[in-house]
Every structure is written in structure tokens, then in C-alpha cells.
């Protein structure tokens, strides 16, 4: 493998923070480190970029030990993007980017035509050509991250290490930045190692994931291997809420208590209703959802009881009974506006059943909240 750590222990002043770190990244691949705050993600990155002394173990880059390379040689092979705030006075963005040529320029730091071409290309890769002559102190956080990334590109490394490159960026800039990183990995054949806070993005951008918790690597592998079941919940010790590994989305905790409303959902109509009810802390039951329905993913996280049925098959009688039992327990029946077709005709039956049972039939979460409020006052 191109970049490899073996039995690496990292920490500060001899005190081990994370031990037995073994991972490897190939050129053109992205590895993300995830884990709770204070788990030692930054410490690992600082050690493998030689900002911190290692405690034990080896790190190799193209079979050469990282710790034997000269400063200049290392700078030509590995560049970094740090979280420390950069505040150089009177420097244009172009000058900041050109600093990346440091390991290549002469003793006075003079740029050659080739250096200048590399600077322009780096600016182009991060879509920041227009920033070249602007003072670095005058640009936004998102632009700064891109300029600092261009600086790291200028070093023409084969390995790039980034510490939380997406922090403080809004969603648009986060996605732009990750998109650039993906392009870098493939176009420049670079190995990229970074720490990320956004587990959903980590799953989508990374080829490998390693999870740090406690004093060791809890899990590593491809996102598909790592993001299974309740793994994220246990990695972050989440006590409430869930992380949907399939969709990569975060859901808040389900409202507690016995549900007094049954939501008839399906085909995505249920999700906005679920969210509305969750925000108002109103417990609900819902059904009948096929297991491949997008509503099912959210309902499993937010509702107290879900009646679900196997996809691509007729709904068995048993499931209908289950749903009816839930309707019996509820005061309200909320039709989220499901489109009823040939394969979900059971909906018609459920609406009919609710009417028969004298349930209050409603058509939106707002109606329910208003109705419930009115009844409470009376």
C-alpha cells in the first residue's frame, strides 16, 4: 500500500491517547477518520504528518519511513490543511497559495514561471482564480478553506492530510470542497486522509473509514462495512435519536408515550407529518408501510409502532389486523394524503375502519394539533 501505519501509538508527551493504529491508503483513495470529539482524530493526523512525535509504531510512505525523511523531502510528498487559523498580514490569496511552492523554490523563495503555472492551476482546481489578487484577510471562511487547499495542492504531494476541512462551512461550501477533494484524488492520483465531523458526508465521500473511540480504532473498512445497524449510535454514545446508515441521515428521538394518533402513510407522504408530530412531541403509530418505502426509514426512527409489510408482496391479513388494533387504541386517524392504487388498496379499508370506529379523521398534522388543542381546552 502507498501510505501505511503499523501499530502506531499517538499521544502527547509520552502519554498514549490512541494505540495500535494500523491502516493503509492507496493513491487515488480517500480515507476519513470519524469519532466523537476528543477521541484523538487530530492527534492521529498530527502524528502522521509529523507535527507530533509518535510514541510507537511505524508510518511508511511508499515504503520509506516517514520519520527518516528530511523536512524538505517530506514536504514534497505530503501536505496538510490544518484547523489553525491563518491570519497573515498584507498577503494576497495568490501569495498564500504560492507558499506551497516552499519546498521547491530557491533560498530566497523566488518563483519560476513553472511555479507560477502550478499556482494558477491549483487556484483553478479549487475554483478560486478570481481570488488571486485579493487580500487573504478580506475573504470569507469558505474561500479561505479553498485557498488553503490550493496551497496544499501547490506542494504537489502524493499524500494530503486534512483536519476537519469542512468545519465552519455552510452546506454548499462543504459539498464543493468534498467534490474538489474527490477530483484531486483521481486527477492527481493523491492519497487523501482527513477527519470529518459529518458522518453522513464521510460515508458518501470516503473509500475507507476508520472510527476512533476510547484509546483505539473501533472499526475500519469501507463505508458499507463500517456503517451497519446501530454502529454510529454506539460510536458516539448517542442516547437519543438515530443515524440511518442506509440514507445517511440523522433522525431525532421518537416522542415518548402512548400514541393517540394513527398516521396513514406511504410513498413519502408520511415524512413531513412525522417530523411535524415529532417536533410537537406527539407520539404516533403508523402503517401500513412496505419495507422499501422511504416513509418506512423515517417511521422506524420516529414512530412508536410501525406496521410494515414485505415489499413486492400482497399485505397479509395479519398486518391489517395489527393496523386496526393500533387504530382502535388511537383517538385520531390522520390521512397523510397517500395516493391509493392497486397495490395499497388496504388504505381504503383502513380509512373505512377508522370511520366505522368513530375516530376523528384528519388530513394534516396542523389539523391534528389544532383539534387536540381545542379538545384539551373544552
Amino acid at each position, binding site marked *: 500500500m502507498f501510505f501505511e501505519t503499523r501499530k502506531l501509538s499517538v499521544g502527547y508527551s509520552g502519554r498514549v491517547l490512541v494505540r495500535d493504529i494500523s491502516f493503509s491508503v492507496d493513491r487515488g483513495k480517500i480515507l476519513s477518520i470519524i469519532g466523537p470529539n476528543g477521541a484523538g482524530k487530530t492527534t492521529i493526523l498530527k502524528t502522521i*504528518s*509529523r*507535527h507530533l512525535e509518535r510514541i510507537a509504531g511505524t508510518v511508511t510512505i511508499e515504503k520509506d519511513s516517514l520519520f527518516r525523511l*528530511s*523536512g*524538505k*523531502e*517530506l*514536504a514534497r510528498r*505530503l*501536505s*496538510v490543511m*490544518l484547523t*489553525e*487559523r*491563518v491570519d*497573515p*498580514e*498584507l*498577503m494576497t490569496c495568490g*501569495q*498564500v497559495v504560492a*507558499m*506551497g511552492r*516552499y*519546498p521547491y*523554490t530557491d*533560498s*530566497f*523563495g523566488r*518563483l519560476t514561471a513553472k511555479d507560477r503555472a502550478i499556482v494558477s492551476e491549483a487556484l483553478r482546481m479549487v475554483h478560486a482564480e478570481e481570488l488571486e489578487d485579493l487580500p487573504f*484577510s478580506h475573504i470569507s471562511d469558505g474561500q479561505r478553506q479553498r485557498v488553503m487547499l490550493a*496551497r496544499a495542492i501547490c*506542494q504537489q504531494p502524493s499524500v494530503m492530510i486534512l483536519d476537519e476541512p469542512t468545519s465552519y462551512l455552510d452546506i454548499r461550501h462543504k459539498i464543493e470542497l468534498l467534490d474538489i477533494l474527490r477530483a484531486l484524488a483521481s486527477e492527481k492520483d493523491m492519497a487523501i486522509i482527513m477527519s470529518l465531523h459529518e458522518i453522513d458526508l464521510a460515508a458518501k465521500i470516503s473509500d475507507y473509514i476508520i472510527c476512533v473511540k476510547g484509546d483505539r480504532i473501533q472499526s475500519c473498512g469501507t463505508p458499507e462495512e463500517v456503517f451497519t445497524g446501530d454502529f454510529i449510535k454506539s460510536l458516539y454514545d448517542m442516547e437519543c435519536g438515530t443515524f440511518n446508515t442506509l440514507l445517511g441521515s440523522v433522525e431525532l428521538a421518537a416522542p415518548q408515550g402512548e400514541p393517540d394518533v394513527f398516521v396513514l402513510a406511504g410513498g413519502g407522504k408520511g415524512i413531513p407529518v412525522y417530523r411535524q408530530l415529532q417536533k410537537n412531541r406527539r407520539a404516533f403509530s403508523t402503517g401500513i408501510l412496505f419495507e422499501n418505502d422511504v416513509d418506512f426509514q423515517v417511521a422506524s426512527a420516529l414512530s412508536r409502532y410501525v406496521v410494515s409489510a414485505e415489499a413486492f408482496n400482497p399485505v397479509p391479513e395479519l398486518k391489517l389486523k395489527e393496523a386496526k388494533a393500533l387504530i382502535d387504541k388511537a383517538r385520531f386517524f390522520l390521512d397523510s394524503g397517500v395516493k391509493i392504487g392497486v397495490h395499497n388498496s388496504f388504505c381504503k379499508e383502513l380509512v373505512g375502519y377508522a370511520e366505522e370506529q368513530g375516530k376523528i379523521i384528519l388530513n394534516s398534522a396542523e389539523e391534528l394539533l389544532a383539534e387536540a388543542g381545542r379538545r384539551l381546552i373544552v
Partner: protein
Amino acid sequence: MNKFKVIRYQLVYLVLLLLIALAMVLNVNAGSVSMSPLRIFKIIFMRFEEGSVESNIIWKIRLPRSLTAAILGGALSISGLLLQTFFRNPIAGPFVLGISSGAKLFVALAVIFIAGRFGGIPPYAMVLFSFIGSLISMGLVLLFSQKIKSMSVLLVIGIMIGYICSAVTDFMINFAKDSHIASLTYWSMGSFAGVSWSALGTIAPIVATGLFSSILISKPMEAYQLGEGYAKSMGINIRLFRLVLIALSSLLSATVTAFAGPISFVGVAVPHIAKMLVKTSKPIVVIPATFLCGAAFCMFCDLIARTAFAPTELAIGTVTAFLGAPIVISLMVRLSKGKH
């Protein structure tokens, strides 16, 4: 670096050189014994009237004094620039951080205990003592800087170290001989006067070494502006670089203190003026500009000190503070405005 910028740098250098030349003429010209510029020109360049009173005034007093002001002013400014780079703080300077006071203390020790016993002290020994003094107070500041990350606290510590050194100096002056007291008091007020050609022979090589060494480390200095982490990632040996920075700035400010006494505000204010003039912080451009600017600044300050209330001469520190402090204040205001 495009053509337009290079022209700007050259223009700034040229203007500063002209200012230095002008200050030189004015400085040599000004004084209680007035002489026509033509006569001065003849005395300096054609060795006219050798041995006359006028010739002696120019050759033994005015000329060395002007050159001292130029060289030491430049040295002090470079020292400030190096410290500002080191601490990455615009307010750092040899006077602010107590380095000048440490040097002052050791020079006082040298004058009282060595010059008193052996009847004199050679110029290079003065520099040596001054250098030791500045290294000790610098060492103290650095010791604290490892524990304290807050720049403002560090500055306060530097100022306090300065006060302690001054207090010890004053304490010793109390027990010194009258003749020493007079010279020490005069010296501690700061002045470019009384520097002989032989002393200049010590000063010039030291300052030249400091200046050229600074230019040699201008590449890592530029990278260091991005912070320690990035500098390290570009292959700079941070420990060695910081050591060189400290040694150079201490050597330069020690030389100044040894010969002209503690001079405030030049080290803080001049680097900023220089950066504003060249509109860049590229050290390779800023270092020469700072040196020239410091030279011009101190020559004009010395001119004011000599002429403003003639025949009474002001202490050079009085003038530099008077001109330098408002510059520092306006700078701070500008900087804090820029941050919001």
C-alpha cells in the same frame, strides 16, 4: 511578483535613500556652529581645512553621530521586525518585551564594576554585556511563553521584566560613583552622541551581519507568517529557525542599547511603516525597507532632538516616543477595525 509591484518597491527604496541623504545633510548642517553646505561638502569630500575647528566638529562629532543614528536606527527596526515575526504579534519589540531593559542592566553593571575598576571598557565588551543582558531577559520571556499562550499576558510579563531590570539598574546607580552616575544617567536616557569612529567600527560589522543574516532567513520568515503548523509542514526546522530569530534580534537590539541606550517605539513602529509603504509583508522586500525606514526615522528624530530646543538637547527616547507612540496607537486602531 509582477512588474508593477517591483517598481513600487524600488520607488520606496529610492525615496527612503533620498530621505536618508537629506537627513544626513541636515544633520551635519545643523548645530550651534553654522556652516554653509558648500563648506561642509568641501570638508567632507575634499578634506578641506583639515585640523580646523569646523573640520573637527564635522569629522569627530556630527558625521559619526549621523551615521550612528542611521545604522542603529536600522538595526533597532530590524530587531523589532524579527520579534514581531517571532511572536506573530504587531506590538512586539525589544523595548516592549523588556529586552532593552535587560541589556541596560548589564551595561550598567559593566560600567560600574568593570569600567570603574579598570578605567575603561572597549566597545565590543559593551556589546557583549548588552547581548548577555538581552538574552537573559529574552530567555525569561521565552520561558513564560512556553507556559502562557496568551500574547497579552506575555506582553505584560515582558513589561514587568523591564520594570524589574530598570529597578535593579536604578538601585545600583544609587551606590555608584558620581562620575558613573552622570554617564549612566545620560546613557540611559538614550543618545546617538559620543560614538567614536572606532566604536562605529564595531557597530557597523555587527549590524551588517545582522542585516544580511535576516535577509538570508527571509524565506522561512515568510512561511512562518502562516503559523507554526504550516511552516513545519513545509519543511522548516522550527526550533532552529526560532533560535536564529531570537539570537539575531537580541544581537541587534543589544548593539543599539550598548551604544545609544534604550530607545523606545522605533522597534515597534518602524516595521509597520515600512510594510505600509511597500504594501506587502514579504520579508525579502520588507527587511531592506525596514532598515532604510528605521535609519531615516532615527536620523530625523535625532535632528529634532538636537535642534527643537537648542541649545538644550532632548533625549532621543523622548522624540521617538513622541513620534512613535501615536503611530503605534493608530496602527492598533486600524488593526482592530480590520478584524471586524
